[in-house]
């Protein structure tokens, strides 16, 4: 430390009160004490005093008024050894803070005395780089990215909707993606099912999906479930996940999934597409309507749409599937206004979005008053034979 630095520090010490770690520990039970850690991020990442606010000294003047608006509060600042915190306290005093205190000996002494500290969970360097554009968004940030990495999303179907949804959820760093599908990759899938490619034709879709996702992001654990959802397995399969993205194409699975998700109180991000039009909504049990609130039962076989293949613009499930991924990420982060109780429709030909309100049905057989979601009927495939 040079002469001028020493002089600066000496002068600051005459202005600033210092407390020992023992004094700080003693006063922490007093809720009016605000603890501010002024170290750099890499130091904070190695451990901090529980309850401390992190305002690195380099940003102190810019950020302290947002972090601690009350200038009359009892502020205790600490750094690693008790030098930077004295200078920081001196700065705060000049900014009008009443009586900022510096912790003598800093975090090093605090630790040496055996006082409690927290080691934050942090992203690895590779993750910080990969998700840097998320970290710049206040609604995500490091805490949000860790939530995404901890999240478990089940995709029902690895087809037109499931492909883009899974691909973007994987890119976003959703840590566990369960994918259930029993189909194999066919050439006619490649117009829209972007997880698959020519070399995967004839292979199981879940295996193809896993390969594509693992090549994109090694942070993602793919649970490939080469099966169909059925009454016997649905509860067990969805139990492991926080959110379900529904990309199925048939009524029995829709109802099966709805009833099981109401019972397990898991949100379902629902999407469907037809030619140039798609729609999506979020069924969040007991917060908004469920599928049976809208349609208590499927159409009878005689009136059900036929099983003939209908065309779809390949891009359309891409758009709807990505909107589903966006809804899933909002639910994980707890940000924004999820599409609960709202049905969003998109018409690619007119490039129009429209929204309809959906309501809970008090008499719903799955989630209404006195409903019995355990004993609801299941359905066989109800599509009629083409005339």
């Amino acid at each position, binding site marked *: 430390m040079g002469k001028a630095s020493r002089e600066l520090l000496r002068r600051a010490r005459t202005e600033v009160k210092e407390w020992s770690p023992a004094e700080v520990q003693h006063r922490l039970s007093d809720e009016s004490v605000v603890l501010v850690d002024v170290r750099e991020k890499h130091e904070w990442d190695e451990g901090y005093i529980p309850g401390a606010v992190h305002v690195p000294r380099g940003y102190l003047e810019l950020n302290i008024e947002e972090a601690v608006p009350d200038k009359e509060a009892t502020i205790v600042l600490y750094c690693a050894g008790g030098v930077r915190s004295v200078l920081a306290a001196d700065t705060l005093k000049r900014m009008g803070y009443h009586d900022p205190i510096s912790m003598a000996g800093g975090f090093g002494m605090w630790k040496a005395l055996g006082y409690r500290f927290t080691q934050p969970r942090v992203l690895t360097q590779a993750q910080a780089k990969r998700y840097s554009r998320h970290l710049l968004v206040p609604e995500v940030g490091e805490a949000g990215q860790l939530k995404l990495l901890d999240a478990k999303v089940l995709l029902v179907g690895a087809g037109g909707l499931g492909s883009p949804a899974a691909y973007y959820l994987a890119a976003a760093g959703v840590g566990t993606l369960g994918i259930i599908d029993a189909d194999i990759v066919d050439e006619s899938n490649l117009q829209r099912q972007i997880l698959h490619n020519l070399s995967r034709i004839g292979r199981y879709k879940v295996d193809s999906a896993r390969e594509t996702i693992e090549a994109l992001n090694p942070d993602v654990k793919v649970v490939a479930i080469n099966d169909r959802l059925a009454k016997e397995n649905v509860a067990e399969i969805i139990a492991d996940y926080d959110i379900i993205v529904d*990309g199925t194409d048939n009524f029995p699975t829709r109802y099966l999934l709805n009833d099981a998700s109401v019972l397990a109180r898991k949100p379902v991000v629902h999407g469907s597409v*037809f030619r*140039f039009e798609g729609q999506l909504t979020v069924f969040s049990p007991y917060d908004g309507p469920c599928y049976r609130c809208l*349609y208590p039962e499927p159409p009878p076989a005689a009136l059900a749409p036929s099983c003939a*293949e*209908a065309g779809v613009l390949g891009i359309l499930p891409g758009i709807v599937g990505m909107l589903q991924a966006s809804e899933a990420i909002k639910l994980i982060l707890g940000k924004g206004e999820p599409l609960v109780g709202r*049905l969003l429709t998109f018409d690619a030909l007119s490039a129009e979005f429209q929204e*309809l309100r959906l309501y809970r049905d008090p008499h719903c057989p799955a989630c209404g008053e006195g409903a019995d979601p355990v004993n609801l009927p299941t359905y066989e495939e109800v599509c009629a034979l083409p005339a």
Partner: protein
Amino acid sequence: MSVVRIPPVLRAVVGGAKQVSAQGSTLAEVLDDLCARFPEVKEQVLTQEGGLNRFINVYVADQDVRFLKGLDTPVGPDDTVVLLPAMAGGQKQLQK
């Protein structure tokens, strides 16, 4: 005359139109007019007893008629009636 928006899965039975005009001051009258011109719509929307099928939802001015007056819901000349049948997902269509 109000406008009835036809969902993609039902367009085949109304000649492919995305929306059609229909007359009437209540939902029942509007649907009667629609079904008179496109008889195949009827069994998709109405039960044999003349009530609304449970596998289709109908909106008047963006409100679900189940929470209004059902078939007696008034329909103004500038209102849009939306038919929203249960859609299974990606690959089905109603065949004519």
